[in-house]
């Protein structure tokens, strides 16, 4: 393990071009996918939490099922759809970063919807009463709700970013772990493990965890400021 730590430090200090490529691909994939998922998931989640409409319960159950979808199943699905023989073959997206992002958005959005729904369903009734009492319109009522949600939006984002950066099944299937193109940290770790280079795998894992830590510290500080 000592040698893994040493190797991790060596790798970072040497600015190994392949490592830098892997890091930038990782950042691109998981930042884009988590932000896209946030953009889609937050409004849907708030809607699910604040409104009561027919079919809501069924949709929620479906959403909870999707939260539990194994990444590799999601990857397999997209592999089949975008494969050379699949229905979307003309888009030529298989083994590209774009498809990795799409697959991750599908994986992560349900999480954000779930977190937002839980929070909003809890706060909305009381807030709505206050808003009605103050004579607010519907739009103003929602603005108040979103304002109230900021903290949990951050929590949802942290959760989805963590899922995106840690996930390997989907990106390995649809990305193919092609060097210099679709290889991200997790697929690289898997590749080295299969190859038997456990030390290098752990070294990459340490770098990944450290990066994740830094991102989380920054976001948590921002979240702390928000809550004040």
């Amino acid at each position, binding site marked *: 393990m000592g040698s893994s730590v040493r190797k991790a430090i060596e790798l970072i200090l040497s600015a190994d071009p392949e490592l830098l490529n892997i890091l930038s691909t990782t950042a691109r994939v998981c930042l884009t996918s988590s932000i896209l998922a946030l953009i889609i998931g937050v409004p849907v989640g708030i809607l699910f939490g604040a409104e009561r409409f027919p079919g809501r319960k069924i949709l929620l159950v479906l959403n909870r099922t999707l939260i539990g979808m194994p990444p590799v199943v999601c990857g397999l699905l997209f592999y089949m759809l975008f494969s050379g023989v699949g229905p979307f073959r003309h888009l030529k997206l298989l083994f590209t970063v774009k498809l990795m992002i799409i697959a991750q958005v599908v994986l992560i959005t349900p999480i954000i919807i779930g977190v937002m729904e839980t929070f909003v369903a809890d706060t909305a009734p009381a807030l709505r009463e206050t808003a009605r009492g103050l004579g607010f319109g519907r739009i103003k009522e929602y603005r108040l709700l979103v304002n109230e949600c900021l903290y949990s939006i951050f929590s949802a984002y942290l959760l989805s970013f963590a899922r995106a950066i840690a996930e390997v099944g989907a990106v390995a299937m649809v990305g193919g772990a092609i060097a210099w193109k679709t290889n991200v940290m997790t697929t690289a770790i898997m590749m080295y493990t*299969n190859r038997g280079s*456990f030390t*290098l795998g752990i070294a990459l894992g340490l770098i990944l965890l450290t990066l994740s830590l830094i991102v989380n510290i920054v976001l948590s500080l921002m979240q702390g400021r928000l809550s004040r």
Partner: protein
Amino acid sequence: MKKIVSLLLALMMIAALCACGQAAAPAAATAPAADTPAPAEEPAPVEEPAPADALVVDTCILKEADDAMINNYSLLAVNPDAPFADADGNAVADVELNTVGAAALINWLLSEEGQELAANYGFEQYGEYLFYLKDGRPVSSAEIPAATEETKKIRLSTTTSVNDSGLLGYLLPVFEEKYGYEVEVYSAGTGKSIANAKMGNADLILVHSKKQEEAFIEDGFSYVIDGMDAERLNWMYNYFVLCGPSADPAGVKDAADVKAAFKAIADGKFTFISRGDGSGTHTKEISLWPEELGITAEAESFKDYTDWYVSANTGMGACLVMAEEMKAYILTDKATFLTFVANDGVMG
């Protein structure tokens, strides 16, 4: 104040991470063994915490250069008119393949320059040639067109051994630089590589399992490119080697041939690590067991041998690490084994 606290926390976490890491090391090293049935013998006791670069590899080559152990590598261009079918078995007619690029790469690999590079690979680093050129191999002197916007991207689906041994990383940049192509390497076991090509996701394949290649051709997935006289372009080879602990408890060193050696392992129930992943090496290994054992790729076929037959279902390097840990026998291609030994059993 809050900031200082979080910074302190962060530092603590980093320290904890390193500390946990120290403890996690042996666990990580033995992890692959966890999902296999308990082997007959005790797993090797946890080694004294020597640094990884001081490890000495005990696993060594016990049987090699037997005619039954030749490991043939072949190139096959994927046929654009192959009977591609989607997951439901419906025919798909318009699968787009880069046939020009595939032919260019094949012609270059079979050209004098490509062949010479492949034949010399490894000598500088390992003191031994890793791949040999076959007698009567197909040779190409066809002119290689420079890449155009449409033909630039070549998708090569290949087996892990040519990628992990570093051969492709050595050859392809030369080709890419000279002609402007970009080769995307998808590397998996032969079984998965071929499946990937059958789904229309590869322009050519480089694999090493004659049986699976012939089935691929028979199903119409390959075709004869201009200037060649067969679909299967078998141009280089090396040897599979039977490796095991230097003490060689099964005595395979003295076995008459490799089949006898496999019989000795099975008779004595000595731990054997099988790739178990449908790769070329796995296919080869299955063909070497005594027929009466009836070992095939199906899990059902070796359920009675789980006390010594370990189906690892992972890459060659990981299997070698496992064999080293469990003092087990293993069939491997020589290139990967030499790379493994050269790196003191840690594979880079």
